[in-house]
């Protein structure tokens, strides 16, 4: 028996008051002459025995009454004994102990995890097995090896229990039971038993799947399945999951919205649950969530980051019994803002007629990834391209759209700009003078410009008004063909999206001389003429597009497919890779690296272990399966571990956040398992049975008895 208020229990000494009073407070009786003495003496003689008994009972009742009241106020509890095994032993049984090592077993009660409780319970059951009962251990987690055939090496079994590690992944109990049944099938003992130590979370069980049969000789045996419920009751839990990150230009050029789910797996609504977006110890954003019982809410936190920063952050809420899902780690490579200069060769006051209109619109849709400036070719100076000595320019890419020609100074500056690492995009148009451009840009071009070809008269144009030197085929507009889909600029086009790309009509384009081997044709028209060519020049890169960036020669700019292509071209020229935020990987999955990634040897887990990388036939590299939650770093083949923008985060599996439990009786009814929910040592609190109410009732009865004894 334990007391909530032990000091009050000392009040039970009040029970000593009646005998002490009886001993020390004997007042001198008053003498009284009395005539009917004979009757008094007779009354005493007749009731002497019952009187003595009554006096003793009265004293006892008073003592108990005075002791019971302070004892009741001390709120005593007794600890219920754990019920014995539900299975009556009927002969020796081959036994497999199945230890649930799924993520939800990390749930903590009284400072210890349920998995630890399961280990202790399994060791107790192992100890309680008869000497003639063979046993083995099945750890139930993803990719756990099958249990060995039950044997009598108790030390090995105990060691297997002690060395087991709880995972962060889901476990399929049905699969584990089948593995245990397989192990039992090899045991010569006819009686088979499987004991599962689990938290009974519903996600681990498939009630529609019957318990496994065991083939024993020519007959089929149904093993006896016991389930030891180590959670002993509801497991209220709040978990975060499903983080997605997307740019939020509304809060700044490098603003991001982090959207995630908040699950409330408890029977009580949660109000004002604090949520944080943290990087290191800094809190960048804070919010609150109200989530109804057993419901889920989506929450968004937003913050701006430094351009070019590599952010290792986390979404966090207050820790509860299952801490693994109270945090979602993430890695975010914030791109630097590309500075782009458009040289608009055919500017117009009507925006849609402006040569740069569609390009500008497409680049602005990159949600702050670029800072775009537009200039007229006549006002373009060398300083615009390379800056001055005092103020060097920090341009990343220059786009020449329908520019007739360039002055010598500007052309020279452009060459220097490219050779130093800048990107140059050249689009054609009716104002372009191929010869002048060939002369001014020379070897910078991926291919020398030749003459304009009109595949068909553009809509709205009167026939015969073709530019001088135009080659006319008259067979109808050209289409893109021979597209290099492995190039980053076309990677966004899966098989369904390619149709939009191939439907673009090109009425007129510039034919080029056969490109040198240093140039690469990324796309060509259906007549084989190059449409998009790329070449590295010095430290920079040049892309030549042989049709127009306006509607003058083609309808491609008004098609959706134009937008991602021009975006990727400019991002590539600016040296900014595709920087879409990558959501965290789920524990248990593999992290797939993009083909452009450096050769990776392994990923280093948060605990310092290595997870090997592997490549498949298609050449893509993956790392996994990932078994730990947190930031993983890539170890490159040529060097040691080093942080890179390709580091990635791994999150807890949200299925394991779902701590809603199976009804043990349902499991017993539907699958015939015997569920034992008796409390273990960790759950002493739950097994405390209050006895103060009984004490108060006893005190009331004693009071009544005392009154009756007094007569």
């Amino acid at each position, binding site marked *: 028996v334990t007391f909530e208020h032990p000091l009050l229990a000392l009040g039970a000494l009040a029970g000593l008051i009646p005998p002490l009073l009886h001993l020390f407070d004997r*007042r001198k*009786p008053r003498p*009284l002459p009395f005539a*009917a003495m004979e*009757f008094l*003496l007779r009354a005493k003689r007749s*009731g002497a025995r019952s009187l003595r008994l*009554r*006096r003793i009972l009265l004293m006892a009742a008073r003592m108990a009454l005075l002791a019971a009241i302070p004892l009741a106020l001390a709120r005593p509890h007794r600890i219920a004994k754990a019920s014995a095994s539900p299975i009556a032993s009927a002969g020796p049984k081959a036994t497999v102990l199945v230890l649930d090592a799924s993520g939800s077993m990390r749930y903590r009660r009284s400072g210890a995890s349920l998995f630890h409780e399961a280990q202790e319970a399994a060791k107790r059951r192992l100890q309680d097995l008869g000497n003639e009962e063979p046993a083995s251990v099945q750890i139930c987690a993803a990719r756990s090896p099958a249990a060995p055939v039950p044997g009598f090496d108790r030390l090995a079994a105990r060691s297997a229990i002690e060395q087991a590690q709880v995972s962060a992944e889901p476990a399929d109990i049905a699969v584990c039971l089948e593995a245990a049944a397989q192990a039992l099938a090899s045991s010569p003992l006819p009686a088979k038993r499987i004991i599962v130590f689990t938290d009974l979370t519903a996600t681990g069980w498939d009630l529609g799947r019957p318990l496994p049969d065991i083939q024993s000789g020519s007959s089929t045996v149904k093993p006896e399945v016991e389930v030891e419920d180590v959670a002993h009751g509801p497991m209220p839990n709040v978990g975060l999951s499903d983080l997605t990150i997307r740019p939020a230009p509304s809060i700044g050029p490098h603003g991001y919205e982090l959207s995630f789910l908040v699950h409330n797996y408890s029977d009580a609504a949660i109000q004002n649950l604090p949520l944080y977006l943290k990087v290191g110890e800094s809190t960048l954003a804070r919010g609150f969530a109200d989530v109804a019982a057993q419901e889920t809410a989506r929450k968004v936190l937003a913050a701006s980051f430094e351009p070019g920063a590599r952010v290792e952050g986390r979404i966090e809420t207050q820790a509860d019994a299952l801490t693994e899902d109270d945090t979602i780690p993430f890695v975010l490579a914030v791109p630097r803002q590309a500075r782009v200069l458009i040289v608009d060769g055919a500017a117009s006051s009507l925006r849609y007629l402006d040569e740069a209109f569609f390009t500008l619109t497409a680049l602005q849709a990159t949600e702050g990834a670029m800072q775009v400036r537009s200039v007229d070719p006549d006002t373009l100076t060398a300083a615009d391209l390379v800056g001055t000595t005092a103020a060097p320019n920090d341009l990343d890419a220059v786009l020449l759209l329908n520019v007739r020609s360039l002055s010598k100074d500007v052309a020279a500056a452009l060459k220097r700009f490219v050779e130093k690492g800048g990107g140059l995009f050249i689009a054609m148009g009716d104002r372009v003078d191929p010869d002048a451009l060939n002369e001014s840009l020379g070897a910078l071009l991926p291919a020398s410009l030749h003459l304009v070809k009109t595949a068909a008269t553009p809509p709205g144009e009167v026939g015969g008004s073709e530019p001088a030197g135009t080659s006319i085929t008259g067979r109808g507009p050209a289409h893109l063909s021979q597209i290099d889909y492995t190039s980053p600029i076309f990677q966004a086009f899966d098989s369904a999206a390619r149709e939009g790309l191939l439907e673009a009509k090109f009425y007129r384009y510039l034919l080029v001389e056969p490109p040198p081997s240093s140039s690469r044709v990324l796309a060509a028209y259906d007549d084989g003429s190059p449409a998009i060519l790329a070449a590295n020049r010095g430290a920079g890169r040049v892309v030549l597009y042989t049709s127009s960036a306006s509607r003058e020669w083609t309808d491609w700019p008004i098609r959706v497919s134009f937008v991602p292509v021009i975006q990727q071209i400019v991002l590539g020229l600016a040296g900014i890779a595709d920087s879409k935020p990558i959501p965290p990987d789920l524990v248990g999955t593999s992290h797939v690296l993009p083909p452009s990634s450096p050769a990776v040897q392994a990923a280093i887990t948060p605990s310092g272990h290595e997870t090997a990388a592997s490549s498949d036939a298609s050449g893509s590299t993956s790392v996994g399966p990932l078994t730990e939650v947190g930031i993983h770093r890539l170890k490159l083949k040529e060097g040691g571990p080093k942080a890179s923008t390709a580091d990635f985060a791994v999150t807890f599996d949200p299925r394991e956040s779902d701590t809603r439990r199976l009804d043990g009786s349902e499991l017993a009814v539907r699958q015939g398992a015997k569920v034992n929910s008796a409390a273990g040592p960790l759950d002493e609190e739950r097994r405390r049975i209050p006895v103060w109410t009984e004490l108060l009732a006893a005190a009331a009865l004693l009071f009544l008895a005392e009154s009756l004894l007094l007569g």
Partner: protein
Amino acid sequence: MERLAEVSPSGPTDLGTLADALAEKVRRRSLIVLFSDFFDENPEGLRRLLVLRAQQNDVALFHLLDRTELAFPFEDPTLFLSMEDERRLEANPRELRKGYLEELAKFLDGTRRLSRERDCDYQLVPTDESIEAALVQFLARRDRRGFGAEASAAPAEPTKVP
């Protein structure tokens, strides 16, 4: 009545000796009025006394008892001292009350029943009531019946026996 008032009680009750003395003294038919608590250790004393009735005497018993003897209202521990001898008893009255009152009731019933059987008048008189008044009532009742008439029943008791 004045002679009676001068008498001071002492010693134990001995109704048998009294009966013998009265039998000696009373030679002709007489009215014998007896005032007593009838606490006689000899249970035959009262029977011998009531024989006087069989000798054609009129016998009237006035049973005198203290009110505390009838109700036994004591609560605190008490040392009871016998008024007729040296006996004493230290007791908690609450524990003895029930048994005492049962014994007393048995005694009063026996005395009353014996009086009725021997055709004697009987009246219980608590000592806090006037003996004179009880006696006058008795005599008046006797006059109404006529001297020497057979008493068919005991007169109504003026005091309720607990």
